[in-house]
Structure formats: C-alpha cells, structure tokens
C-alpha cells in the first residue's frame, strides 16, 4: 500500500504534510479512518450480541 519511495522521512520529528495523508483509497483523512475503525468495532459488537441472543 505504501511503496518505499513514498515514505516521507527517516527519523522522528515534526509531522509533515505527507503525514496528514492516510494513503488509503477511500479514506483520505484521519477522521475518516477513525470513523471506519469505530464502525468496524460497532459491527463486531453487534455481531457478538446477535450471536449471544441467537444461541441463548
């Protein structure tokens, strides 16, 4: 997903403009990535609740 020639820096330091980009197709901002992760979490919990309810 991130070829070596796209990596911005080789040391810690201040965030660069490149750090603001996620490099993910469809999820261009970090806010979008966090919403996606939260959505996955809610999906897992709902599925587990459904499993619990179905077999109890």
């Amino acid at each position, binding site marked *: 997903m991130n070829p070596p020639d796209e990596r911005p820096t*080789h040391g810690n330091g201040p965030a660069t403009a490149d750090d603001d980009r996620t490099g993910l197709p469809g999820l261009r901002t970090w806010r979008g990535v*966090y919403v996606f992760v939260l959505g996955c979490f809610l999906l897992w919990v709902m599925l587990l609740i459904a499993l619990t309810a179905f077999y109890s």
Partner: protein
Amino acid sequence: MNTLDFVVLLGSLLGIAAYGMWCARGHRNLSHYLRGDKTEGWLTIGISVAATQASAITFISTPGQGYESGLDFVQNYFGMPLALMLVAAVFLPIFRRLNVYTAYEFLGHRFDAKTRLLGAALFLLSRGLAAGITIYAPAIILSTVLGWRLDLTIILSGLLVIAYTVAGGSKAVSLTQKYQMAIIFGGMVTAFIVLLLKLPAGLGDAFTVAGGFKKLEAVSFSFDPHRRYTFWTGLLGGLFLSLSYFGTDQSQVQRYLTGPSLRESRLGLMFNAVFKIPMQFFILLLGVMVFVFYQFEPPPIFFNQAAWHEAVQHDAAGKLTALEREFSATYTQKEQSIHRWLEAKHAGDAAAAASAREQAQSALERSQVVRAEARTVLQADDPGVSSNDADYVFVTYVLSHLPHGLIGLLIAAFFAAALQSKSAELNALGSTTTVDFYRHLLKREASDAHYVTASKWFTFLWGLVALAFALFANLVENLIQAVNIVGSIFYGVVLALFLVAFFLKRVGGTAIFWAAVAAQTLIFGLYLLRHQFPALDFSYLWYNLIGCAACVLFSLILQWTIGAGGKSAASLPVP
C-alpha cells in the same frame, strides 16, 4: 512428537531467529539499535504491535478459557479500538515530535526528572514481573505435556530469545515477529480447520451444542461488580488497560516508534484496532469448538495428564480411579443425550429436543461435580499441583488428535508466541534501563557505541532476571489472567501520569509524583485486602480505572494545595 514434528519445530524457530540476527547485524548508533532503521511499513508495525501483545499464553490459555467459560472473555478487548484511536491521535504525534526513545522521556520533558524515573520504574517493575510469567507460562505447560525437563525448556527458549534480541536489537525483534506470527496463524488456522473436519456433527450442530451449554454468550450487560467480564468492564476497564498498555508501556511504544513516519505508525495501530477483537474471538471460538469436540470424544477427567497419572500411582485407596469411572459413565449419558437432542432437532420435535437438552445439561453438571471432586483429591494428594487445568486443554487436544507435522507446527507456534512477546519485552526493558536510568543518571556524556554496548548488556541482564524468575515461579491460577492482573495493578497510575501530562497543564511535577505514589499505594491496598473485605473483591479490570482516577484526583488536590503550575504538552520544544 516424532522426528517430523521436531524438524518442523526446530527448523522454524532456529531459522527465524538466525534470519532476524542476520538481517539486523551491525548497529551504527543507539537510534538504529533501539528504534531500528526506520524502513518498516505499517503492516510490519501492525504485526509487531499485535505480536508483542499476543504471547504464548494467548494461544495456549485463551482456548482453555473458551473451553471452560465460553466467549465472554472477548469483552475484555472492547475498550481496545477506542484506546488505540486515542493513542494514534494524541500520544503518538507528541512522542514523535519530541523524538523520544522511551515514553518516560516525555514525562521528564513535561514534568521533571523524578516523575520520569517513577514512570520508568513502575514500567520496569510491572514488565519485569510479567516477563517472568511470559517465559514460564508456556514452558510449564509444554514441558509437562511433552515430558521435557522444565528447567531446560525455560533455559533453552530463554537463551534463544536473549541471543537474537541482544544481537539484533529492535529491528531483529520486528523482523522475527513478522515470521513468528505467520507460523502462529498458519498453525492455529490449520488446527481450527482440522478440528471442524473431525467434528462428528456439522458446524450448525456444533454451534447448537455450544449454545445449549452456554458457551456462546459473548456479551453480557450485567452490572454485577463480581462478574469479571461484562460489556462495561470490557469497555471501561479495557479502555483504561489498553490505553495504558499501548500508550505508556515501552514494549508497545518502542514497536510503533520504529515507523518511518507518523502515518505508518498510525496505520499500524489502526490495523490492530480493527483486527484484535476478531482475532481474540477466533481463538476463543477454537476453545469452544474443542469443548464441542470433547462432547463426542471422551475427554480426560483432568487435562494435566502428567499430574493425574502421578497422583493415580500414589492413590492406594483407588479414589481417583473410582472418580474416573464415574466421570466416564456421566460422559456416556451426556453423549447419548446430545445425540437424542440433535436427532430431535433435525426431526423438528422441539419438545423432545428441549427434554434431551435438559438431560445433557444435567449430565454435564454431574460430570463437572465429579471433575471438581477429582481436583480436590488431587490437590490433597499434592498441594503443589494447580487445580486449574484449563491451560492444558488445547495442548492436550493438539497432541492427542492432530496429525504429525501439524503437532510440530503447533508446538512451534506456541514457542514462537513466547519468543515474540519476550523479545519485545527484553528490548523495552533494556532500552528503558539504558535511556532513563543509565544515560540519564550515571553516564550523561558518552559515545553512541558506548550506549549501544550498555543497552545490549542491560537487555542481556533483564533476560537473565526473567529466566531466574521463570525458574523459581509457581503455577498461578490462570496464566493469562495473572499477566493482566499484574498489568492492571500498575497501569492505571502510569496512564494517569500521561493523561495529566497531556490534558491538565496546571499540574506540575511534585503534585503528580506524590499523587502517583499515593494512588499506587491505594491500588496495592485494594488488591491485598480483597479477601478480607468482600466488597473489595471486584474484577481486577477496575483497578485500571480506580488507579487512574485516584491519581488524577490526588494530583489536582495536591496541585491546588501547593500552588504553581507546570507546562502543557503542546508547549514542549521540538528538538
């Protein structure tokens, strides 16, 4: 185990260790040794973070927990995705901006030297204790079931991990973790598929049986404080536990600081936020399916068979043999009831299915009573034997029912898991000792080569400490819980140090230092007095929340009392 199993076991473990040492040879400076060469992409970082958390205990003990209690342990991880998002959004940018080697350096920047040393000391204490458990846990189980000498198993696996961690530093840790995780998941997924193929009932019937015996109750919204795993303890306690672990535990911080950019480190953390819950669910489900398997195949009355056979030899009155016969009889009744239950279900006869299910449940309860009695007799015979055999369930299944070659792969997976978490721990213990104590207190002006050598020596010494602890440890109630309990006792307070540093700019070093000391004393008190006062005997996950809240509250009160503020994280200089 036969020759093929040993070839798979030794070939994979030694091959990965040698490869890691070869690729990571030659360290130019301290940054290279402690943070790698900063070429790892997000997937390597993500795998490294997951591998550090997933020790052998995860893959040996968790299926046993699924076998005994079902899926409810998965709730323990509900707070983790939220915690990882906070770490990625708040903690990580500041660590990278300050260009720190350890998380505790940040405390020195924000507060003062004594708070930095307190944070580092709490880490060394908690992780040093856990390091002994992570090396001892798989060794005691594997040596028992394989008939190997415990001390030799501990020493040989310990020396292997010390060798490549000392020689290769952080890069060797990340590289080896990637291939060790491939071995682990290759083995676990194959074991799961073979298990499903061996089940006499189909997958639907397997779920019916598991559900009928209450093994599929994954989520509980109960407010009972004595119930260890609920949605609330998982979400709140798990949030604080995970926030503390991923945000302040150097063994994790060091993994994601190896990233070449903020983006790669963040994506590595988000990878874990998405996949940790399904991964734990899968491992627990494996244990539940082993439970279903043993409803159609006679299980041993006690899964630590070595301890059982030894006790039977000393059992002159034949009490254990009689219990074994009774257990076998209840198994036969239970199996017949389950067959009737499934036949009635397939025939659409709900009343007959319910009746047969009740009979099966009743037979299961009787067999559990017999098992409990056997444990009591066993412990009376030898108090040194743990009555909890859940940690032996999955290994016993692997050795008794999987084909050769796959047995070697699974045993390699257990050892690989032990090595991957151990290597990250040793790497972090060596780094913290070097950066926060040796370089900060003893030798401030020395060459990078000197600090690399010092770091190697400290890593080696921590390896020896962990080995010594593992050699003299005793089996605890349940291994994965033991590690989490040790973590929970310390993590809340360490987390509070960082939360106050990030968000309460009025609080200075002296206030937070004494607040942390007081809060840690409170948690020790709660833990030690839990048997004397039943009201204090609540889930250990709450220690994270209580420790953190107490430390934050104490720091505000103390700061208000002594006056004068600190500096905010945002105002810290960029190096």
